[in-house]
């Protein structure tokens, strides 16, 4: 192939996507920064960013009235709930991925399909179904009282939000870990135990390190949507637990685009730093999907 045709092919195939990516991936991000650092007349200002760190509100918990930094509280809550959900997903998803990878081919395919079916259902409906389960007069409480086990109050608590997050994003944890483990050579594990490695050590010293790329992408794929969600907290938290996503959405609905952009900008910067740290710490590239 001569050089001319090669460069022609390259130009023809790459140009549409390059233009598209520049216009609709890169430029919009610049717009986030632009809106974040301007006021409604598009004059440069730090006010929006400052507001995120300094805005206060009063919390009345019945006994005393406290003044808190509104958005910092919201941010820490989002981070905490997202981390707890990610940890639960990892703790429960890892064994499942392992079991799946060790099963025979047919069982593997069936389990894989079963795990993917809920993903294909609309997540709003799934979350809403959880609301009807967890309500005070809901299905879970009906079930418990039929068994004379008393009642539980879950809806409107942080636990309910965590349940929703774990339910919605669980498959994103299992699938990447499974796909790494399925490629693991079974002989490696046999070799380890033949050489006298006890069961748990095989897990710790052979399986875990080899599955780390899957774990990393699983963690990213659960952490990022759960830190930025806004529907789950509205429905399962009864709107009592504002998360960072709720804050962005609230400002968007109120047509406060500049402050919405500022919160989005801060979230983006924090996530970038976290991902950078994770890559540095584990010395691995994070592969999504």
């Amino acid at each position, binding site marked *: 192939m001569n050089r001319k045709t090669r460069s022609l092919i390259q130009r023809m195939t790459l140009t*549409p996507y390059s233009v598209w990516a520049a216009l609709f991936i890169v430029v919009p991000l610049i717009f986030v920064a*632009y809106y974040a650092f301007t006021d409604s007349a598009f004059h440069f200002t730090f006010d929006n960013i400052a507001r995120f760190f300094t805005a206060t509100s009063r919390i009345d918990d019945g006994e005393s009235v406290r003044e808190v930094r509104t958005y910092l509280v919201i941010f820490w809550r989002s981070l905490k709930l997202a981390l707890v959900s990610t940890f639960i997903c990892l703790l429960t998803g890892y064994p*499942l991925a392992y079991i799946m990878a060790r099963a025979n081919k047919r069982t593997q395919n069936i389990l894989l399909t079963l795990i993917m079916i809920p993903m294909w259902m609309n997540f709003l409906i799934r979350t809403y179904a959880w609301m009807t389960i967890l309500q005070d*007069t809901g299905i879970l409480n009906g079930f418990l009282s039929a068994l004379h086990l008393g009642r539980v109050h879950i809806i409107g608590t942080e636990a309910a939000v965590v349940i929703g997050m774990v339910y919605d994003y669980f498959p994103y944890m299992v699938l990447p870990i499974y796909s790494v483990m399925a490629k693991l050579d079974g002989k490696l594990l046999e070799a380890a135990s033949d050489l006298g490695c006890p069961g748990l050590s095989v897990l710790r010293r052979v399986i875990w390190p080899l599955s780390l790329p899957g774990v990393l992408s699983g963690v990213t794929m659960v952490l990022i949507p759960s830190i930025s969600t806004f529907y789950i907290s509205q429905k399962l938290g009864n709107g009592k637990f504002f998360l960072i996503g709720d804050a962005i959405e609230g400002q*968007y609905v109120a047509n406060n685009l500049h402050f919405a952009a500022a919160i989005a900008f801060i979230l983006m910067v924090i996530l970038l730093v976290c991902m950078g740290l994770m890559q540095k710490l584990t010395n691995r590239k994070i592969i999504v999907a």
Partner: protein
Amino acid sequence: MKRASKIYTALVMVFLFAPIAILLVFSFNRAKSLSVFSGFSLYWYRELFRDLETLRAVRNTLLLAVSAALISTVMGTAAAVGINRLRSKVLRTAMDSVTNIPMINPDIITGISLMLMFVFVGRLFGAATSLSFWTMLIAHITFCLPYVILQVLPKLQQMDKALPEAAMDLGCTPFRAFLKAELPEIMPGVVTGMIMAFTLSLDDFVISYFTSGNGFQTLPIRIYNMTKKTVTPKMYALATIIFFVILTLLLISNLYDEESVQKRREAKAAKQK
């Protein structure tokens, strides 16, 4: 599988399918309640098919998903071919990073960023509202593209590089060489990419929420608006129908897979004889 593994897997499946089972059951509820079952009826299904707004939303969703999947597959496949041929390391890294952005960024940021640009540009041209079907289509193509590219690129890397060159040496034009030699090799990746794009577009709520105009409603946005008020089992009837459509599609594709595996096995056996 060991017993403990079986029990554990079963428990996880109960957790995954409990809400789905509940919405299947309550879609047939006679009463309006979503937590007390008072008798079997098809009332809510009838209601669903009378709800023109929801039916229009279904049509919109399909229209959007098909357009987004087709356009992103064509553009993404071309992009993958181009990226695969890039010689410059710097350009390659730049392309990879940009492609990664929509996948790593939370949906809410992708949605907000596109919305800000649309609103800004719209204002520049003096439009009162710039969000419409077209802005949504642009948004959907944008978040689908990386998934198509990531499905096609590995197939291109596995392919024998001499293949298109040989085709051209034998007199094919570059475009014909691509169609005849390259495309059949990477077809599985292209198809998977297209299916992924289609389902992502079908299911997307967050990005659509920020980039949709008043006039154009997709199903997830319609569902969102329905859940703002009290929800009737009508929405569960809708979910049940979606569930069975998905189940049928999955079963068909599984059967198809098993058949092709069977055929390959037979072909292999025939060869060995």
